[in-house]
């Protein structure tokens, strides 16, 4: 009898620890909503989603930062995805076994580099370099995209590598036995079979890019206006929150939380998207 009740207790305790993620998520959502309510009440959605950020005149528009987030994310994915996909293909299809370890170790190392360290690298090397080449300030969407590309490469590589490895080798064998070359096999059989997994990898990479803060903050600005070029300063949602949260109060502070809420919304949307894709992935065999 005692052993059964202890078993029950243990089970419930473990369930509580498992529920921490659910409660945590609920708390995060709750407090983001709660803290951003004053901004929605006092400034209103039209103001919050306008293009002008000027707290002294009561303008709390986040459009500039939203655009900054989207453009830097797009830029990072544009630069990072080809590299990451090539790496994943290289590691799974091309690399001789001996060099495979070196390359995959290198990707792991890159995944471990703290974002602040990458930001410092961007600030000390990349921005001055862009400045000297273009004659502009150097910081901006271009620099941020390059840094984000470096950050998403390990994520996209790792996940699409898993997807490529999950493709049954019998597909490749059938294709090669029909006289297809290695790359015909890769492009016509292996990549199509892994496409849902690769898509999921890119979406997760996108999530990483949207949420990245420190590395971007050190190379993007600061400026609260639309950039005039790829190398003129601007802000993203994350960097704006980071820069201003310390010294803001009232509606301004609340509007920063509203930006956090938008970020949260973007992140959750991507999670839902990935889950969709993974569900489709289960029917990987059922194509066209």
């Amino acid at each position: 009898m005692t052993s059964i009740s202890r078993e029950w207790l243990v089970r419930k305790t473990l369930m509580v620890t498992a529920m921490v993620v659910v409660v945590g998520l609920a708390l995060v959502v709750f407090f983001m909503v709660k803290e951003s309510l004053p901004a929605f009440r006092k400034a209103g959605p039209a103001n919050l989603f306008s293009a002008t950020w000027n707290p002294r005149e009561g303008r709390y528009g986040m459009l500039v930062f939203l655009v900054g987030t989207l453009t830097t994310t797009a830029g990072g994915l544009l630069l990072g995805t080809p590299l990451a996909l090539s790496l994943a293909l290289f590691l799974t299809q091309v690399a001789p076994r001996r060099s495979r370890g070196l390359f995959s170790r290198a990707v792991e190392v890159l995944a471990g580099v703290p974002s602040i360290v990458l930001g410092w690298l961007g600030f000390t090397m990349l921005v001055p370099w862009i400045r000297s080449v273009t004659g502009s300030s150097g910081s901006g969407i271009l620099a941020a995209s390059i840094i984000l590309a470096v950050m998403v490469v390990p994520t996209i590589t790792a996940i699409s590598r898993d997807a490529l490895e999950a493709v049954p080798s019998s597909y490749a064998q059938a294709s090669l036995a029909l006289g297809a070359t290695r790359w015909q096999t890769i492009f016509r059989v292996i990549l199509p079979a892994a496409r849902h997994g690769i898509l999921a990898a890119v979406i997760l990479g996108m999530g990483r890019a949207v949420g990245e803060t420190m590395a971007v903050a050190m190379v993007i600005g600061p400026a609260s206006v639309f950039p005039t070029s790829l190398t003129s300063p601007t802000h993203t949602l994350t960097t704006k929150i980071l820069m201003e949260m310390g010294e803001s109060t009232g509606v301004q502070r609340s509007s920063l939380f509203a930006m956090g809420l938008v970020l949260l919304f973007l992140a959750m949307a991507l999670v839902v998207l990935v889950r969709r894709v993974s569900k489709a992935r289960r029917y990987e065999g059922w194509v066209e």
Partner: protein
Amino acid sequence: MATREKVGVSTEVRPKLREETPSPKERGKRRSGQFLADRAATVVIWAFALLALALVALVLGVILWNGLSTALTPSFVFGKPQAMREGGGIWPMVVSSFYLAALTLLLVIPLGVGAAIYMSEFAGEGRVARLVRFGADSLSAVPSVVFGIFGMVVFVIYLGLGYSLLAGALTLTLLNLPTVMRSAEEAVKSVPKSYREAALAMGCTRWETVKKVVLPVAMPGITTGAILSAGRIVGESAAVIYTVGLFVRKVPWSPFQPAAPMAANIWHMYTEGALVPDWFRVASGEAAFLLIVVLVLNLLARLAASVVRRKTGYRT
């Protein structure tokens, strides 16, 4: 009769998927461009792979080149930080980083492992499991700066902890919980079913089975996951800046004191650098030291798994 030269020579080893480049007259009905395309694609992929390798080398190289000499100076690592003066050290920041990591692990490992055990041993595929899965997926996607301002509101202000190691540890617990949980779950799931069945067949309860059989076997995986998340905690800054602090002069002793982990302090040097004349040297040294710490932790994670495995003698 055509014979190959290498009959009788046994040294040649055929590489995997080797280049398929025939002489022009051998191509037969094959379209001529394909072999060129195949060769070109291979060259391109190698170029990309080498580019990535060069990129990693560049990142590590530049950071270490700029900061390694500073980071390896004892008076820098163990020295007191200075403002308005040159020659400051980072000892309080080093301690803060490790203190914060230890405190966070203390909270996150029991929660993560508990959740993992629940998910793999007890939950099944019910509603609770689906909810937890969704929670973990979503939480792992939340940007760290959002965790930062959440921690600031809830732990720093609402619970009245102020900027403190504990507020940071609680925030980072939430941030790291999904990953710790996932790695622990993978470790637990890799334990063969037959082990469990053997224990259950001897009359063990589920919990006894978990405690005596599953956990010991899963230990190497759990340890690896824990050390890897230690690396992430040490490198985290966005969630730390508004919960723990950016700059301290003295080594923090109590979890209720404010502290300044290295990652956050680099940001401080970048924004408030004017207060420290040699801020560039300090930040470069700190970045290099931080990078080394993270790399060593990653290496340790790899080693730890094999050490723990050898000690327990279990194999998964």
